[in-house]
């Protein structure tokens, strides 16, 4: 069963890349050159792999965020905004609170998660209490969060770092920094936290009663209600947890990669999380793979851009194509049957 799922996913990815090749050919680009640079940028050397992992790290969290909500039948597309709220909170706690080393980091992480959870709570509550579609509300609140955090670090605002022109905070205290893991790359301990959260999420969903109930609500709210489960409570819980994990993504970036909050720091990690969750077929362990894939695409696209072989954004196109093929269960099956004739 698991093997077949993996096989289907790999097939989807191949098909997507195939269509991508057609697009490249239509644009007159050299397909070998593009793929060579894609590979080089993602896996070519230690620095490249480091770049892949660095890009993948926040995507692990945002993919989990989408996944948790999805397992409860909800569409959280506001991970980007929840991440920003988490990031801002991590920065504030990292700058103004004085605590010894590891403790400071933990407190920052928890605070960031809590901020993300609060931002996820709003659409969760509205859905549970008033039946408001969470798809629209998470999207709206995401934009609000991005503008809001930008405002907080704008010139003349309290958190703004006056030494620079751009909208950002000062550096967090050294005790709050997530140290680098693999010199000379930029990979930080955030990826370890990510791996840990993957395991926690897996354990929660498949080995605990609360997770069982959450999944039941996602698969059949009517049967869940029959089973004595409070559907409303689970919806709110799922959205809070999704927000929490997305908040951690922001903390990872602030405490690890940038060591400060920079407005607009995310090139769309929240959106990659949606792709990552879908490609992983909503399996927590699959997220490690899909986040890694997304990270590789991002890292590779930078090299493609540098080399001039094609616009680096071909990677985004590939990402979109992969999702399209992954989400169509009967398409793949039909193609296999057609091939067999």
């Amino acid at each position: 069963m698991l093997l077949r799922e993996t096989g289907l996913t790999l097939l989807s990815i191949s098909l997507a890349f195939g269509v991508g090749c057609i697009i490249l050919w239509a644009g007159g680009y050299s397909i070998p050159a593009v793929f060579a640079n894609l590979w080089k940028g993602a896996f070519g050397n230690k620095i490249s792999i480091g770049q892949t992992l660095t890009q993948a790290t926040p995507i692990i969290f945002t993919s989990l965020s989408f996944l948790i909500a999805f397992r409860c039948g909800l569409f959280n597309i506001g991970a980007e905004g929840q991440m920003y709220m988490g990031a801002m909170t991590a920065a504030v706690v990292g700058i103004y609170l004085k605590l010894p080393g590891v403790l400071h980091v933990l407190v920052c992480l928890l605070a960031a998660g809590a901020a993300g959870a609060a931002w996820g709570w709003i659409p969760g509550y509205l859905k549970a209490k008033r039946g408001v579609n969470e798809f629209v509300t998470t999207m709206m609140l995401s934009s609000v969060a991005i503008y809001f955090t930008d405002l907080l670090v704008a010139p003349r605002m309290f958190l703004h770092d006056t030494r620079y022109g751009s909208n950002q905070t000062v550096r967090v205290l050294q005790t709050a920094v997530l140290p680098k893991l693999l010199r000379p790359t930029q990979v930080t301990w955030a990826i370890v936290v990510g791996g840990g959260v993957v395991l926690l999420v897996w354990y929660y969903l498949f080995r605990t009663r609360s997770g069982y109930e959450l999944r039941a609500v996602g698969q059949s709210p009517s049967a869940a209600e029959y089973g004595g489960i409070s559907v409303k409570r689970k919806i709110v819980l799922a959205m809070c947890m999704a927000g929490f994990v997305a908040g951690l993504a922001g903390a990872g970036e602030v405490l690890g990669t940038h060591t400060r909050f920079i407005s607009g720091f995310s090139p769309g990690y929240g959106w990659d999380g949606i792709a990552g969750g879908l490609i992983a077929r909503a399996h927590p362990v699959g997220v490690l793979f899909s986040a890694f894939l997304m990270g590789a695409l991002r890292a590779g696209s930078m090299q493609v851009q540098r080399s001039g072989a094609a616009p680096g954004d071909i990677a985004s196109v590939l990402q979109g194509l992969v999702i399209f093929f992954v989400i169509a269960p009967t398409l793949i099956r039909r193609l296999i049957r057609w091939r067999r004739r």
Partner: protein
Amino acid sequence: MNIFTIHLLLRTLRLSSPIALIALGETYSERVGIINVGVEGTAVLGALVSALVSFYTGNAWVAVIAAVIGGGLAGALHALWCIQFRANHVVSGVAVNILVAGLALFITSALWKSRGTSASAPTINAWYIAGSALVIVILSQIFIFHTRWGLRLRVVGEKPEAADTAGINVHRTQYIYTIVNGMLCGLAGAYFFNNLGYFVNGMVGGRGFIGIAAMVIGNYSPVGALGAALLFGFADALQMSLQGYIPSQVSLMLPYLLTVLVLAVLIKRAQVPAALGKHYIKQ
């Protein structure tokens, strides 16, 4: 009457029109049971195609038509995925959004060497599109509730089995109106381009999703969608007027905050088509 107010009114009417078009399009597709959250991406596609075609042909009218066709194709793709391959409707719509976002970056980089921005191209007066939106909404209201095709499409979304046994082709109906949805979104995208004069990443800025919210608040009717769109258009217009008086981030936030508030307060669980989101399997 001071200029500020007239300006605001006119701007409201203009800015409502793309939202109204998208909300109307989504009304059509959800009335036949297909959820399409890819309306955001479809509008972006429409804007992109407008810019592209206008740039290369120099004819902005042809560009509008191309945008409509492009939107229709996106709608067809989504319909194909949902109906033929039984993808989850929301997930497929999300995929459309992501794919179009990537394509926009890629194409602008490839053709104009600047990530996410196109060169300027000839435009038509955006009021033409705004005006046509009003006409289309009124015609749609009559179409959906007072013609036989409207009756049939409503039945498909409420109870496809009943439509099937009455001899109506459920899947074909779903394809048609999802494509119509795409075309209307493409037209909305054309509005965005003609309003600005070039394509830039983020020009649609979530208005696709606001359109969906408008459809829900408008209770799945064209006229309702228009009313809700006017509300959101007003917020958009207001936000522009307030720039300079308050920090730009605050005014930019307003339309989004307003959407959440309006949904939270005004949501009624009334008229959702009963078979929305379900895959109809005929024997």
